[in-house]
């Protein structure tokens, strides 16, 4: 079979003509939220598609609340707890392991924390960064599990933390919300949600 390209006026032995094959990727951008000058009380991802196997969240955040050091980033799945900013939900449990350059430690969190965060009067223009993985987010046979690597360095003050935890609920995840535990997200904070497919 011969195909005549209307653009190159040349003949090709494939329907692709002079074009390379389109190979669909397995890591796709779903949505991004970037905080503007007005700050934001939360960063929300709603109606998360069901077409992926896993989710990854990548971001950098800073909060406007008073304080010079580090704080925590709070999250919730499917609007549980109902109130934004609520860190008292008993539906989450997790482990964390951290080092701050002077001391290290580990603990169990019964709160819905997932990452380091930076307080409002810490080193200017410095943000915490994190990469969070949420596996099998639609599997209704098990709890929703996540892990996260996060950290922030303030040039003499900072912390790197590994987190792992789960939401004690088997519902498919369709909504993900992040909020600070002190004040609002400041301008330039941004969080991106990605979906990862597996080969059928």
């Amino acid at each position, binding site marked *: 079979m011969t195909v005549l390209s209307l653009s190159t006026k040349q003949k090709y032995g494939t329907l692709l003509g002079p074009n390379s094959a389109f190979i669909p990727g397995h890591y796709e*951008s779903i*949505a991004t939220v970037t905080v503007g000058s007005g700050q934001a009380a939360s960063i929300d991802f709603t109606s998360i598609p069901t077409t992926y196997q896993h989710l990854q969240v990548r971001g950098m955040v800073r909060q406007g609340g008073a304080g010079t050091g580090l704080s925590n980033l709070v999250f919730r799945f499917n609007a549980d707890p109902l109130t934004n900013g609520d860190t008292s939900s008993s539906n989450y449990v997790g482990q964390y392991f951290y*080092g701050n350059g002077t*001391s290290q430690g580990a603990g169990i969190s019964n709160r819905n924390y997932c990452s380091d965060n930076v307080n409002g009067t810490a080193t200017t223009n410095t943000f915490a*960064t994190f990469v969070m993985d949420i596996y099998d987010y639609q599997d209704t046979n098990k709890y929703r599990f996540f892990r996260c690597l996060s950290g922030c360095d303030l*040039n003499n003050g900072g912390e*790197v933390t590994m987190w792992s935890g789960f939401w004690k609920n088997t519902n498919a995840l369709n909504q993900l919300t992040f909020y600070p535990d002190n004040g609002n997200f400041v301008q*330039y904070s941004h969080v991106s949600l*990605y979906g990862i497919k597996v080969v059928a």
Partner: protein
Amino acid sequence: MALTYEPIATTTLSSATNSVSFTSIPSTYTDLILVCTNVKFTNSAEAGRIQFNSDTGTNYSNVALGGNGTSVSTSKQINVSSGRVMGAFVGPSTTQPETTTIQINDYSNTTTNKTYLSRFNGAGTEVNANVGLWRSTSAINQVTLITTAGNFTSGSVFTLFGIQAS
């Protein structure tokens, strides 16, 4: 949905060297991921380190957390001329290949300092996590990995990926 996560460049060392650079990094991505595999060192005395945009000033700082099978350690460095990304405590291996993944989020913005995360995996030495700060609001267009003692050995592989958010 936007497709993303693309390889930008790969370097496989054909001879030992103490520096590997990725230059002219396009600004079209949101985040960078630098994956270092099959990496061995000719000297175990020093960690692998990172610099951005050829900046050798004392504009870097970092915090490390690591374990070596016996103990857990943390340490920090401030106002140093490069950031630590590999082998923070025991030092890297001269015999066993090791892997490191470095995450540089929002690398091209021009309003914030740049923070990176790294995870070093040395099966025969240590595992560690690092967070580092480069106190510059410049967009990152060059990433350089260095050793300050010895070299990366021949066969070490360094691949830079870009992730683009929608």
